[in-house]
């Protein structure tokens, strides 16, 4: 279908409403003058101003005027259309006017907020408004495009945020696909020892959730799977998921562990942050879900009975299959929750702290494993180099955080609390040990957080030194920490047996390619960007995508869980719609003008345009078209014209603006 080009047969009756926005606009733009000047402009039937157009009386005035003056086009000269376009479209609808006859002339963000000279700003406002009048005269009535919703959700990431989101969506009554790239769900939280400020055992509180998710009738768990690509749009996504070969049939494996015993290949254990070893065929941790062994092909001697084959020989259940191949699963979903987690900043980046060189300088997650009862030392605090119990540990906060110069400029938010927990637990486990914490500020703003921190200081006698460590080096058996106490003005040196660096939280390394493929918006640090920092904190700018957990930025467990539940609720909102509304301001093709050159196809970021080989013209899937206009700008023949944003309209706007 092609839209008719401008209908100039009948002169429109246009109403102009100029908003003061309190003093946001009127202190810089002479709004009365704008309304006055435009009164006699061709096509304008009525022109007026008001203090708050978005207020109830403001909107009522617009509705009444439309009816009274039989207006068929409206200009609201106010703030950016991203804020109130919907409000005024709704007002038009109530007055019986097609909502796409509304034009927003932005004289706030584009004018009053960026200028100070009242005379010039007023002149600019007049030009902006005139250009919109020129456009409004050619606007067509449009009807929204309606689409069905697929009420199935995809959750990417099986950490605590993904688990919570999956469970909530499933409990709302919808089907969920939960994709996790590792052999087991559990994420980072399953690696933690105790959790602040209650000292609940992390595994004890997470494993029931993991079991619940795995048994939920509406959750399909896809571990050792990776999302390959996503196409489509909100309500109607097509997802390709790669199933990585486990080389062990999870239904047959009975966890006897004989394969692990005979495997000759020893590999650093990821679950213990490389502080211990596993075999090439392994179970990540005892409570792993699904409960099955996985053969890590990268470290296996070759998946070949001639080269080794010991595990296969010893498996009574015949669960091991070297011929398993990678396969692709295709699924359709209506919403996607991205819960891909975080990583810790590499210690290598901080050469002055020696984390790369010295085994006994560890990061926060490594220390979690050292504290954990399921860790490499069985929960006893022993240092990695020689297994001795450290009698002095120095904790260094803000390692790589709050550094605008070389590292991460932001606060990683959870380190103050987990460092307090580390120091406290160390003092509990090694009562004669000295714990020293170097900090810049202690940020303990959560519920019961400050009390916890104070307990660490007052009851466990942890020495907090206010100053950032400059350098850590080894002398003999000791690590020497050079710091300063800014409260007394003393340069200090601490001898330590072990140092724990609270490394900055950064974007997850392994998922950056995936995020690029999802075309999901991220911030400058690579964390997911929310649609609005205050009012839409769990939605992505990309419709149909929702955010949960540390993929969005550093946060602690309660905040992660809350955000995951909020994302799930938002998915519920989406699925509760009977049908979805798609903006009709798409770019159709005028068959008579299209030469089938295909330039627009290469320009389209949404794959909405394809060539019809029989007719030699481009056809458009209007549901996929987001109305970005890239094709219209590139089309050499003028066949691609965006609805209510045609070339003619743009030229009219330019003429109106450039004419004195």
């Amino acid at each position, binding site marked *: 279908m092609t839209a008719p080009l401008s209908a100039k047969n009948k002169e429109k009756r246009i109403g102009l409403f100029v908003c003061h926005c309190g003093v946001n606009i009127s202190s810089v733009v002479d709004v009365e003058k704008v309304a006055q000047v435009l009164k006699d402009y061709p096509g304008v039937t009525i022109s007026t101003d008001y203090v708050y157009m978005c207020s109830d009386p403001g909107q009522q005035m617009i509705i009444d005027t439309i009816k009274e003056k039989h207006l068929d086009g409206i200009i609201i000269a106010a703030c950016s259309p991203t804020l109130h376009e919907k409000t005024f479209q709704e007002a038009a609808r109530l007055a019986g006017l097609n909502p796409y006859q509304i034009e927003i002339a932005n004289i706030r963000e584009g004018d009053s907020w960026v200028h100070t000279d009242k005379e010039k700003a007023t002149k600019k406002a007049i030009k902006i408004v005139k250009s919109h009048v020129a456009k409004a005269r050619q606007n067509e009535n449009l009807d929204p495009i309606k689409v069905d919703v697929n009420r199935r959700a995809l959750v990417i990431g099986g950490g605590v945020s993904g688990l919570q989101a999956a469970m909530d969506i499933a409990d709302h009554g919808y089907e969920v696909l939960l994709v996790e790239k590792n052999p087991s769900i559990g994420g980072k939280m399953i690696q933690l020892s105790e959790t602040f400020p209650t000292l609940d055992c992390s595994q004890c509180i997470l494993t029931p959730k993991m079991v619940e998710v795995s048994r939920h009738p509406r959750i399909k768990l896809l571990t050792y799977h990776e999302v390959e690509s996503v196409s489509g749009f909100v309500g109607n996504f097509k997802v390709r998921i790669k199933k990585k070969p486990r080389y062990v049939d999870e239904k047959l494996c009975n966890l006897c562990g004989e394969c692990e015993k005979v495997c000759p290949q020893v590999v650093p254990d990821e679950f213990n942050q490389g502080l211990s070893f596993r075999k090439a065929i392994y179970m990540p941790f005892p409570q792993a879900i699904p409960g099955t062994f996985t053969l890590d092909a990268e470290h296996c001697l070759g998946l070949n009975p001639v080269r080794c084959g010991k595990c296969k020989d010893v498996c009574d259940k015949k669960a091991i299959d070297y011929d398993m191949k990678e396969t692709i699963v295709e699924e359709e979903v209506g919403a996607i929750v991205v819960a891909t987690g975080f990583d810790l900043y590499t210690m290598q980046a901080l050469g002055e702290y020696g984390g790369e060189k010295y085994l006994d300088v560890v990061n926060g997650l490594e220390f979690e494993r050292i504290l954990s009862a399921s860790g490499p030392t069985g929960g006893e605090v022993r240092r990695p180099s020689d297994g001795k119990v450290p009698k002095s540990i120095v904790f260094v906060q803000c390692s790589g955080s709050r550094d605008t110069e070389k590292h991460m400029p932001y606060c990683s938010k959870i380190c103050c609390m987990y460092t307090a927990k580390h120091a406290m637990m160390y003092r509990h486990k090694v009562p004669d040990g000295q714990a020293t914490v170097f900090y810049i500020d202690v940020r303990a703003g959560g519920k019961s957080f400050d009390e916890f921190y104070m307990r660490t200081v007052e009851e466990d006698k942890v020495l907090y030194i206010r*100053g*950032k460590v*400059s350098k850590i080096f080894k002398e003999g058996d000791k690590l020497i920490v050079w710091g300063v106490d800014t409260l007394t003005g003393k340069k200090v040196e601490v001898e330590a047996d072990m140092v724990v660096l609270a490394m900055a939280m950064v974007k997850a390394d392994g998922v950056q390619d995936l995020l690029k493929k999802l075309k999901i918006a991220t911030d400058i640090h690579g964390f997911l960007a929310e649609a609005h920092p205050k009012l839409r904190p769990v939605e992505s700018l990309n419709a149909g995508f929702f955010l949960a957990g540390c993929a969005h930025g550093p946060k602690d467990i309660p905040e992660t869980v809350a955000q995951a539940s909020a994302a799930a609720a938002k998915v519920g909102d989406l699925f509760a719609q009977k049908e979805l509304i798609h903006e009709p301001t798409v770019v159709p093709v005028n068959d008579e003008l299209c030469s089938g050159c295909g330039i627009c196809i290469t320009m389209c970021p949404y794959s909405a345009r394809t060539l019809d080989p029989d007719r030699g013209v481009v056809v458009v899937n209007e549901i996929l078209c987001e109305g970005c206009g890239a094709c219209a700008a590139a089309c050499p023949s003028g066949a691609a014209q965006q609805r209510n944003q045609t070339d003619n309209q743009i030229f009219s706007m330019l003429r109106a603006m450039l004419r004195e």
Partner: protein
Amino acid sequence: MRVKLKAGRDKRKFIERIEELSGENVFACYQCGRCSAGCPMASEMDLLPNQIIRLVQMGLEEEVLRSKTLFLCASCFTCESRCPKGIDMARVMEAVRHILDPKGKDAFGPGEISPELAKELPQQVMVSIFRKFAK
């Protein structure tokens, strides 16, 4: 005695002058103290480098100008390389030395090197120290 914090032009003038000379934003400093923690000469100083910058932020000009620290800095730039906010403390030190009374005494002048020592010293040491500490 309580230190009275000044407001207004005098205080601003001092801070602005330091910022103009050094090219550094002294208010970027959040007092983590890392400059002092790594400073090889900090143990000799009456005020630590971070305290110098703090006093500049507070506009306490006299206290800064009479500190011995100004003449203990070896310009080794360890502070610069560690500062999480990218402030070059050596430049701030130099700026403070720059605004000292031009009629005042040299902190370290040519008269303080004996002819015997001068014979032994590398040239660069004398050029350096007079450039830093003499008028």
